[in-house]
């Protein structure tokens, strides 16, 4: 165990309160934690646990209606209630931060070079011109290619991973003692995530700073953290060494979190099972450029000759990073975007079907989206939302019949039937995703395309949705196309996996085989980048 003198940030009885129209809300309820020199401390929790607000409170970055009390001593100097000038001498020099959204965290109106210069000039003096040499060094250090050219780029000209590298360069500029990383990789693709975490680790070893990693991702924590603080509803549930927390968790909540990592697997369907959906060399082209006065400058092939064969009761997982074409493939299979190639549903060639011809088939082919809030109309009751499809596909039903079906569907997805008189905003993320699933299930479909259905949910809620999808599949013999960037979820849900990159299939095979022995380099990178319990 490190000596207490190693403690560089000592947080005692820290409270964060927000004044709301409904009275004060305590987001952080008097927590204790400490950060030691050179360590990686992970602060873990689900949304609403107060993990980010703790750090915002310490750094004096709360929203205007937020208040912080207690003590947060950085090398003996209490940061809480410190005059702004003294606090500004610490922020950005001794303690620096990087954030989840590398796009919006950088000012879109200034070049990255100028933005990295700012804290250097402010804390160390000198001119922007002098700081420029240091910025070039930093960009080199964080692995930005061709720093001399990139230094004058604007944030929108960089990729997400590069922007996060720029943030890291900014964070390192003044040789900080502590780097607070608030969900630094959540918005990034998994291979980029791995690169950023590796970069952070190597820089940490080199410069000996402490890293406070705020995250919901236990896979990442296990991979990089020395110690872990588990938070829930504004309180610290448990803290200790990473190995202890993972091997011998004490608190029930920690056990539940660890258990919430997607588990289980799906046995392959027999080859005798009938083929439900058969897509042969499906391609989707988008026109690029173009406008009222300009000619179209070309086409972009989002999906390139992908063939997919889905049997009754089967789940095909489609894995890929952003831009791989996986979501477009899902839409193409449902004829929601114009595609070339041949698509057969239940033996019938549906390629080239227009909207009218597709309509009778729609009830059998349903789609569930990632964002359960964005896909539910806020002005309709849950009952209206889930029965809407019945008006189209079973117009003969009476009002009472529809209501009966709504009750059945809600029960089936594990919601109280009373929910049908309420509105989507009254439900949590997980409940809203259940509503979206109920809307699909009420039509008794045979094929459901699930587009990142669990990606916006906390891990513990994710597990419940996965269990629900599995039991629905067993009960009704459903076939799923499960689109996700999350390998752990795919491994638990799918019996067959397709790996996509840049619109083409890189590799495919039965889940067990593919995860055990990936043949393609890209699949190997993808798998090794996912720190989850794979």
């Amino acid at each position, binding site marked *: 165990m490190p000596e207490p003198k190693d403690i560089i940030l000592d947080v005692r009885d820290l409270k964060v309160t927000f004044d709301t129209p409904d009275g004060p809300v305590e987001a952080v309820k008097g927590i204790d934690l400490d950060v030691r020199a050179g360590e990686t401390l992970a602060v873990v929790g689900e949304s609403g646990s107060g993990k980010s607000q703790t750090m915002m409170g310490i750094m004096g970055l709360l929203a205007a209606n937020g208040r912080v009390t207690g003590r947060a001593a950085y090398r003996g100097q209490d940061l809480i209630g410190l005059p702004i000038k003294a606090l500004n001498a610490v922020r950005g020099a001794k303690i620096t931060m990087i954030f989840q959204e590398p796009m919006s*965290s950088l000012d*879109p*109106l200034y070049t990255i070079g100028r933005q990295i210069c700012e804290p250097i000039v*402010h804390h160390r003096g000198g001119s922007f011109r002098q700081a420029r040499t240091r910025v070039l060094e930093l960009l080199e250090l964080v692995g930005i290619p061709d720093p001399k050219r990139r230094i004058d780029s604007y944030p929108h000209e960089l990729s997400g991973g590069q922007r996060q590298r720029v943030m890291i360069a900014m964070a390192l500029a003044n040789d900080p003692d502590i780097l607070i990383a608030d969900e630094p990789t959540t918005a990034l693709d998994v291979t980029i995530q791995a690169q950023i975490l590796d970069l952070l680790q190597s820089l940490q070893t080199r410069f000996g700073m402490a890293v406070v990693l705020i995250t919901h991702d236990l896979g990442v924590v296990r991979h990089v953290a020395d110690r872990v603080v588990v938070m829930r509803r504004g309180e610290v549930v448990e803290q200790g060494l990473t190995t202890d927390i993972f091997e011998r968790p004490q608190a029930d909540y920690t056990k539940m979190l660890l258990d919430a990592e997607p588990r289980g697997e799906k046995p392959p369907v027999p080859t005798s099972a009938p083929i439900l959906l058969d897509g042969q060399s499906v391609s989707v082209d988008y026109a690029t450029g173009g406008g009222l006065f300009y000619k179209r400058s070309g086409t972009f092939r989002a999906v390139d000759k992908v063939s997919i064969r889905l049997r009754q009761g089967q789940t095909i997982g489609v894995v890929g990073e952003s831009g791989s074409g996986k979501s477009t493939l899902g839409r193409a299979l449902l004829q929601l975007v114009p595609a070339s190639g041949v698509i057969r549903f239940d033996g019938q060639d549906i390629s080239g079907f227009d909207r009218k011809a597709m309509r009778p088939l729609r009830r059998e082919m349903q789609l569930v989206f990632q964002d359960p809030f964005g896909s539910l109309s806020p002005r309709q009751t849950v009952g209206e939302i889930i029965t809407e499809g019945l008006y189209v596909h079973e117009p003969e039903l009476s009002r009472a019949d529809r209501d009966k079906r709504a009750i059945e569907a809600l029960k089936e997805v594990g919601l109280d039937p009373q929910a049908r008189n309420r509105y989507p905003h009254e439900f949590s993320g997980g409940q809203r995703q259940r509503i979206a699933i109920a809307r699909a299930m009420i039509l008794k479909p045979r094929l459901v395309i699930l587009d990142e259905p669990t990606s916006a949910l906390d891990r513990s809620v994710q597990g419940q949705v996965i269990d629900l999808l599995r039991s629905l599949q067993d009960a009704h013999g459903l076939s799923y196309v499960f689109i996700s960037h999350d390998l752990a979820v795919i491994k638990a849900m799918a019996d067959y996996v397709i790996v996509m990159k840049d619109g083409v299939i890189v590799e495919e095979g039965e889940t067990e085989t593919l995860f055990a022995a990936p043949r393609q380099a890209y699949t190997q990178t993808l798998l090794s980048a996912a720190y989850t319990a794979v």
Partner: protein
Amino acid sequence: MLSFVFRRLASAVPTLFIVVTISFFLMRFAPGGPFNLERPLSPQTMANLNKAYGLDLPLWQQYLRYLGNVVRGDFGPSYIYRDNTVDQLIGMGLPYSIELGLWALGVALVGGVAAGTFAALRQNSFLDVAIMTLSTVGVTVPNFVVGPVLTLVFAVTLSWLPAGGWGDGSLRYLILPMIALALPQLAVFARLTRGAMIEALHTDHIRTARAYGLPARTVVVTHAMRAAMLPVVSYLAPCAAALLTGSAVIETLFTIPGVGRFFVLGAINRDYTLVMGTVVLIAVFVIVFNLVVDILYGLLDPRVRHE
């Protein structure tokens, strides 16, 4: 960049054509004519006058003739100011309107942006409420009320400033009309700035700037204000065009020999050519300022920079 400017100027031609065409026919379909006076003229005189000005020709011929003249920059003779052409009238009045308008624009922009910024930084404070209340008053009270009140207080009662006229063109003569002209625009700029500033102050990159210990002045001026200027700049085009082409009300109240009066006088008297001349003038100003604003926008925001 240069090709962008040329493309935009080229697209101004059809816009101007449409403006000229619509206003030409609108004007002609309005009842009455330039020679319908209170005491009717004899039919013979009327016919002579119409013939002299070409008003006896079929409408389409008049239209084509007018169009041809406009292309050559000739807006024709005025019907009420018989000794002058429309070109001469505008040429005489425009410098006054532009000078007054530029002052008003400067006052509105600087005052509005400053007031809006302070209000945003002290959101929901007394200062904020006071500024916003005043700006509501500024937008809602018409300038034909503000003008006389200013004259009454500062010219008639206090005798600090002249009540009207251009005099020797010194600033003393400009202050009252400038304030009356600027006030509603200042109020609009204040409201726009306040809203945009509040939004800008809540963005993630402002949080970053604060997290890196940058002093409040840098955070506000360098990062928040530049972003907040984008909607303000957008409003600059219609505002500048309106202010620089003169205000009929203000110029009449303060007896300033600008071009603002011509539009109303021309319309009332069915002075076809004078109305058309001022319409084209305003349209050209709007087009030019829109172009200026687009270029400014590109300078402020690299994401919309033109190739």
